[in-house]
Every structure is written in structure tokens, then in C-alpha cells.
């Protein structure tokens, strides 16, 4: 309701602006005229002459000219008797009182949204009562606002950082992890999380900056799996495949059998040729492309590839490496049942060829599926 009150006040002010001069009837008649200008000009010439800026003959010539114009203006100046026209003044007043609000309403109503209140961001983040769905992004904004005011709240940064990373906002995640380290103190886990975020922001490349973080994490806890994994990845990206394989082998050796990241490391190890069999899972280009995708797209892409592989193997089951790749893919995706199913299918497909069967069983053993 207040909005209409404000509108009404504004309209009254506008109407007043039109009515005011009409009411005063044009009393103060301060206005310039041509004659006044010429008189000023004559005075100016006198001043210039005394200042020595123009010579006497020039001043005289100018004076004559202006005098001539002054005379002409004096005689031609129209005798403007101010006439007051009551009828038209009333019409103008009516125009202001009726026409102005009508035009304003007629234009505003179809365009404006008077029912919609303001939504300044600060107010929205205070949250309650806005009636908006508290989506993840909304919550992030709220936490960020909170942290802007209380930047020393380490717990807040701890909560925020992984969420940002999951949302694909890697740059912000890096900052959040940094702050988390600053206010919560160092730990191998935080350091390697930070390194991971930096690498993610760089499109999956373990940059020198990221590597430093993993090295720090490694120094704090030599068994930190994430740090070890990424140090291996860094070595691989630097072209030191053997170093990478060694790091990952050591990691696998120490790893508990049910560690969720085991298959990932195994795949990587296989990629650098340390897994007994060479198995390029994905081309570098595809990996690079998938790094830029968000979580959903990436999963969809991987699923699509896996499905294509599965169809191909159903038509031609002789490809042992293909089968191993498929099983590994299922393991990476966390689908152990399908992996077991695929290995059974594989055994059936290559059962006639003992050499292939031996290869398959070897491969399955390294993947942790012994039968």
C-alpha cells in the first residue's frame, strides 16, 4: 500500500510544478532584452579602451556599429504587452490536474509491477521470509556473506570449500581452502584438498603451485593417499612415467583393500604401463574435454563411452583388453555388480581360447576381481 502512497505524493509534486507558475500569474518579469545586451556591449568597449586593449579609433568604430544596432533594436523591439489569458490558464490547470495523472497511470500500469517489492541481495541473504527455495547456490551465497563478515571462521571455510568444488567453482574453492588452512591450521588432508582444487581450476593439470601443496601434504603425512595419487599424476604429466608408476604402486601396497580410491589408482597405474597390461582408458583429449565439464556431463559422457564399449564387446567378444577396460570402467564408476557380471561374460566369450582366457584372468586379478 505504501507504494501507492509514494506514487500519489510524487504525482502531487508534479502537478504542483505545473500549477505553481499559473498561480503566480507571471509576476516577476525579470527577462533579458536585446537593448540590454547592446548597452552592456557599449560599457564593455569603454572598459577595454581604458585597459588599453583596443585603440581609440577601433573603439569608436565599434561604438558606432553597436549604436546603430541599438537604435534598430529599440525601434523594432516588439511591444509585448503581457496578456493574461484566464481561459487558457484554466485549461492548463485542468490538464495538469487530470491529464498528468491519467497519462502517468496509463503508461505506468501496463509496464510496471507495483506489487513486486525490492529484492536487494543483502536482504535476500538474510534469508527468512523471502519464501525462496533455499537451493544449494543460495546456501553458498549465505555462507559466503557470513564469512565476509567473519573471515576468521575456519569451520565455515571448511564447510564451504568442498561445496564450491562440487559446484565447479574451483577458483573460489581454492580461496576457501586457503582460508581454511589459515584459520584451522595445517593438515595433510587440507593441503592435498587445496592442491586438488588448484589442479581442477587449471583444467586437471597439476601445476607447480598445486604440486607444492601436495608436497607439503606429503611432508606432513607421507601416507596421505590423495597427495600420493596427485604426486604420481604430476610425475605422469611431466613425462616421468616410471616415477608415477612407482608412487602409485607404493600407494596401492599400503592401501586397505576396501579403499574407495583403489580402482582409480589401479587405472592410473595401468595407464602408465605399470599395471602389467597397457590400457589406455581414455584418450588425453577426451580427458581434457571432460575436465571442463561439470559433474553431470562428465558422468553422462563416461556412461556413454562405457555403453558403446559394452555393445561392441557383445558383438565381438575376442578382445581381452576391451573386456578388461570395461570391467575397470565399471569398478571406477563404483558399480561392482556390473563389473562382476562383465567379467563373467568375458570368461564365457573367450572360453574357447586358452591363451586369451589366461590373459583375462591375469588382468582380472590385478583389478582385484579374482573370481
Amino acid at each position, binding site marked *: 500500500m505504501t507504494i501507492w502512497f*509514494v506514487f500519489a505524493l*510524487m*504525482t502531487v*509534486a*508534479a502537478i504542483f*510544478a*505545473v500549477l505553481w*507558475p*499559473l498561480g*503566480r*500569474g*507571471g509576476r516577476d518579469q*525579470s*527577462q*533579458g*532584452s*536585446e537593448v540590454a*545586451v*547592446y548597452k*552592456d556591449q557599449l560599457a*564593455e*568597449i569603454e*572598459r*577595454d579602451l581604458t585597459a*588599453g*586593449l*583596443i585603440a581609440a579609433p577601433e573603439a*569608436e*568604430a*565599434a561604438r558606432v*556599429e553597436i549604436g546603430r*544596432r541599438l537604435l534598430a*533594436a529599440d525601434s523594432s523591439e516588439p511591444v509585448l504587452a*503581457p496578456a*493574461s*489569458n484566464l481561459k487558457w490558464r484554466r485549461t*492548463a490547470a485542468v*490538464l495538469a490536474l487530470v*491529464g*498528468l495523472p491519467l497519462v*502517468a497511470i496509463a*503508461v*505506468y500500469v501496463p*509496464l*510496471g*509491477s*507495483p506489487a513486486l517489492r*525490492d*529484492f*536487494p*541481495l*543483502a536482504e*535476500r541473504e538474510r534469508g527468512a521470509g523471502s519464501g525462496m527455495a533455499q537451493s544449494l*547456490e543460495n546456501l553458498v*551465497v549465505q555462507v559466503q556473506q557470513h564469512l565476509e563478515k567473519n573471515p576468521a571462521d575456519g569451520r565455515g571455510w571448511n564447510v564451504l570449500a568442498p561445496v564450491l568444488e562440487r559446484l565447479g*567453482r574451483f*577458483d573460489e574453492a*581454492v*580461496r576457501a581452502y586457503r582460508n581454511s588452512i589459515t584459520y584451522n591450521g595445517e593438515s595433510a588432508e587440507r593441503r592435498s584438498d587445496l592442491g586438488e582444487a588448484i589442479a581442477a*581450476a587449471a583444467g586437471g593439470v597439476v601445476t607447480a603451485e598445486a604440486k607444492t601443496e601436495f608436497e607439503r601434504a606429503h611432508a606432513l603425512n607421507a601416507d596421505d593417499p590423495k597427495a600420493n595419487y596427485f604426486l604420481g599424476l604430476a610425475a605422469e604429466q611431466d613425462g616421468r612415467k616410471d616415477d608415477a608408476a612407482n608412487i602409485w604402486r607404493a600407494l596401492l601396497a599400503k592401501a586397505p583393500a576396501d579403499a574407495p580410491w583403489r580402482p582409480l589408482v589401479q587405472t592410473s597405474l595401468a595407464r602408465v604401463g605399470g599395471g602389467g597390461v597397457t590400457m589406455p582408458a581414455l584418450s588425453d583429449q577426451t580427458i581434457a574435454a571432460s575436465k571442463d565439464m561439470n559433474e553431470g556431463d562428465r558422468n553422462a559422457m563416461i556412461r556413454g563411452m562405457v555403453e558403446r564399449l559394452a555393445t561392441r564387446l557383445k558383438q565381438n567378444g575376442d578382445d581381452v583388453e576391451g573386456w578388461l577396460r570395461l570391467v575397470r570402467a565399471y569398478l571406477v564408476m563404483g558399480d561392482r555388480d556390473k563389473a562382476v557380471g562383465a567379467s563373467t561374460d568375458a570368461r564365457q566369450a573367450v572360453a574357447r581360447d586358452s591363451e586369451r582366457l589366461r590373459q583375462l584372468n591375469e588382468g582380472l586379478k590385478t583389478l582385484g576381481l579374482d573370481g
Partner: protein
Amino acid sequence: MIAEAGHYALVLALALALIQSFVPVIGARLRDPALMNVARSTALAQLLFVGASFIALVTLHVNSDFSVANVYENSHSMKPLIYKITGVWGNHEGSMLLWVSILALFGGLVAAFGNNLPLSLRAHVLAVQAWIASAFYLFILVTSNPFLRIVNPPIEGRDLNPVLQDIGLAVHPPMLYLGYVGFSISFSFAIAALIEGRIDAAWARWVRPWTLVAWIFLTLGIAMGSYWAYYELGWGGWWFWDPVENASLMPWLAGTALLHSALVMEKRNALKVWTILLSILTFSLSLLGTFLVRSGVITSVHAFANDPTRGVFILLILCLFIGGSLSLFAGRATSLKQGGLFAPISREGALVLNNLLLTVACAVVLFGTLYPLAMEMLADFKMSVGAPFYNLTFAPLFALLLLAVPFGPMLAWKRGDLLGVTQRLLAAGVAGLVIVALVWAWTRGGSALAPLAIGLGVFVIAGAVTDIVERTGLARLPFATVVHRARGLPRSAWGTAFAHAGLGVALIGIVCETTWNSEYIATMKPNDVAQVAGYDLKLDGLLERQGPNYREMIAQFNVSRGGEALSVMTPSKRSFTTRGSSTTEAALLTRGASQLYISLGDVTAEGGIAVRIYHKPMVLMIWWGPVLMAFGGMLSLSDRRLRVGAPKPARAKQRLQPAE
């Protein structure tokens, strides 16, 4: 509440402008002072409401109220405050609101300080202002409304075009608009004079300062825009003959002509009809400029608006005002009183020559701007008219103009003595020739025209100095008298000298930069050294940094000359996540008037980075020139005295020419 109140204020401004369009004109017909005075209070109220509307939009941007579509599309909550504010006019809707706000500001100024104007003239002027304002209010409300709302507001905005996230945006568009829109005042005065059928001395007294204000802002705005393009776009170019730049150059050329003809009119009561025509043309070109930029007819770096309905609407406004005013001119011009007489060789004559050259130059630019558009529209044939065309047409015209510039202020009013002036300019001419010879001897290579052009620049500057020397009598009078006379000299005379010298300065800068700039384009790796114009630039390394709403990669260069370390330059490349685009931030190192310029390209797979390094000799003079010109304009503006051109008394009977 703020959004809707701002919206409603804009609507009220439209309603007031409509009343202001008719009531004062009727009042002037009936000679009713009350009705005429309505113009004044409505103009002031209009300013109040548009101002409130503009402030409302700024507040919405600052508060990141994403329920307003304009804010959502052009802002981001993480953007620094300054860019939240400048982002208001970094988009089509907001910049049009700025346009009408400035229009209302000028109208308000006329209303507030127009006491010494004849009442009916003031009423007519304000009514014409209201016609323009009504058209643009309607345009904004109907096709580009900045206050439209989103019912379910998104949580984050889409951010401003990163190229515009620069301090240049804070200054360049408002300056340019102050210039463009400032010419609406002389336009309104011209139309008012045509309606009233007479031009009196008060008219001339008023038009010149307004034109001067607009011209100062336009000069600074163009220079600022050029410098912005120079350092932000990363090409090291400062003028591209881009249609959008031409759109601001054309009103400047016409406005400069108007400024000079208004001077003749104020001082000598001559060239009246021509001044009226120029006023109309100048503002028409401003409208054309607004049309070219705002309709999206041209897609270039500036065209961040693209919507055909808008284009058609502005085209209608354009045709209405240009067509209407020119027909009015054709119908009424003959009824205007003819002005004073003067001989062909006189200050007036020189100013007529100035006007002639400037308008022809303006016509050339207009042709070069519109011809490709016409070809594209009619023959579906895309072409571009660039520097070669303008070098052949615009440059000779301007050379001629510059050659004549020193003569103008030294000729006497009404009838002058060309031979005497030539003698007095001899020293300046000799200085110019000496410089030509020196430059020629010094440099090998480059265009043969360059030394000549530099000589011309020196001649223009020396001519401006000569004028002041002559006026103060520096060469022939005792020093005390000279000081006295220099003090007594009207500030407008100093203004003329500065503005004309500014032309020469800019010319020298342009010639030096285009002739002797050197560039180095290569892929560099850390610790590589580039050698450009005697400087050694060593790439120390690349590092990354996080900005408020972007991430930047910085390259660090150590600059040295002859083994002596000078400075560190850090060009960078910023990538903005929200818009997914990036900008180059060039690094500049100023040495005297020359600059070293580094801008970064892409990183290569081998860890190198593409780098463009330029050495631009005397490049800063290109912008010092316009600043000097604007300073001269301000000096002249601050001169509150009346302008009377005292004629030389006739010694012998000379044949006089009519003014028009």
C-alpha cells in the same frame, strides 16, 4: 519500492515533458507570462524526477537487486563497487537513461539560469527541449525500459561485459553524452529562433557558451574514448575510423564549426542563418551518432545493443527531428534578418573558411560512415571504409585547415590585412621550416610527408604563441607593460591560443606515432629478452592471481636500457568466469611523451606466451592536444565578459560582402 518509484518517476517525467511541449508554446502565442513560465517549473521538476529515476537505478545496481532485469543482465554481486555504479550506463537501457538525465540537466540549467533571456525565447527553447525529451522518454519506456522486473529473481547476475569493467567507462560515456546532449541546447535555440522568426543579440550571447560547454565535453570524451581503446583493446591503436568513433567525430567537427560561427555572430552580428543551420546539423549528427551506436546497425566493439525494434524507433525520432527542423529552416530562414557585412579578407572571412573546411571534412566522414552501410543494405555487399580513404580525403582538408589556423586570430574584424599578418607569422613559418629540415636530417626512413606534417604542427603552435606575443606586445614594449597587458588580455584570447596550440600538439603526436612506432610480436618464454627501440625487455616469469570476479595471468617484464634497469612492467590477461570471456590489460611505461606498450596473447603449449610490444614515440601528445583544447575552451568559458569584435576603421572604401 525503489525500483517501482524510479520507474514511476520516469513516467512522471514523460507526463511533465508532454505538458512542457505544448503549454509554453501556446503561452508564447498568447503572450501570457504565466503560461510561458510553466516551461521553467516543469523543466526543473523534470530534472528532479529523471534525476530520482537515475539515482534509483544506481541504487538498484549497487544493492544487486536482481529482480530488475537490467541489473540481472549487467551486474554481478562480486563486482567492485565502482563497476557496479559505472555498469549502470555500461548497457543500452542505462545509457539511454543517462542520456535523458543529461538532457533534463541541460533543460534545468536553462530554466534556472535563463533569467536574462527574453521570456518567449526561453519558453520556446524549453518547449523544443521537451519535444526531444518526450520522444526519448517514450523510446526508453517502450523499447528499452531499465526498470522491468523479474518475478522470480535469480540469485546471481550475468556480469558486465569485461571490456567495460574499466575506469574508462566511468568517464568516457558521461563525457561523450554531455557533449552530444549539450548540442541539443543550441539546437533548441535555433528552432526557437526559427519559430519566433527573429534572432537577437541575446540569442547569440546565449548560444556560444552552451556550444562551448558541449564542445569541451565532447573533446574530452572523444580523447578519453580513444585512450581507453588504446590501452584496453590491446592493439595499441588509438583511432580506427570505426563508424562508432566517426559518430562522435562528426558532431565534433560540426560543433567546432558552430563554435566559430557562433563567435562571429556574437561579436559581429553576422553569419546568423548559417549559425542556425549549423546548430541544427550539429545536433542532428549527435542524434545520428546515438542512432548508430544504440540501434546496433553497426556491429563493432561498441555495439553492445542489438535489437531491431529499437533501431526503427530511433530512426523515427531521427527522421522526425532532422526532417522537421530542416523543413522549418527551409521555410523560415529567409525571414530572418541579415547580419553585418565584412570583407573577404577579415577575421569573419577566415572563420567562414574554417567553417567551410570543417563542414566538408564532416561531410567526408559522414560519407565514409554511411556509404558502407548503404551498400550493405541496398546491394547486400559488405565493405569497410578505413584509413586509406580518410588519409586521401580527410587528411588534406585538415592540413589546409591547420595551415589557415594561425592566420584566423590575427586578422582584424570586418577587414583585415593578409600581408601584414603573413609578415607577423614569418617567425612561426621559419620555425616550422627549421623543424622540417631538422627532422629530415635526423631521421631516415618513414614517410616523406612526416617531417612536413611535423613542421605544420610546429607552425600552428608557433602561430598561437605569436598571436599572444603580438597582443601583449612582448617584442616591442617594456616588460611591465607586457605583464599588465597580458593580465588585461581577455581569457578568451588565451583560450584561443591554447586550443589552437592543442591542434598542433595533437598533430605532432599523430605523425610521430604513425611514422616511427616500432613493434615486436613474438612468442616469449621466461628469461627471453625482447629488444624494441633501444629498450631491453626481459620476461621474468608468469604468475597467476585471483581478482574479485576474475582470474588473471600476469607476465612480469624487466625493462632496461643500455644495461640500466628502468622499471617493471606487468601486462596481464584476465578471464571472467561468469561471462566466460577474457580481457587483456596492457602495461604502459611512459618515458616523456613516448610509451612502451605490452599486451599479452595466448599461452602456447610449450609454456611460451604470445607478446606484442610496441614503442610509440610521442604518443601521449595525441591526447595532450585535446586536453589543451578543452583547457582553452574552459578558459574561454570562464571569460564572463561580453564579446564585442571591434572592427578596424575603414581607411579606404572597400567593397563589402554580405554575411550570407
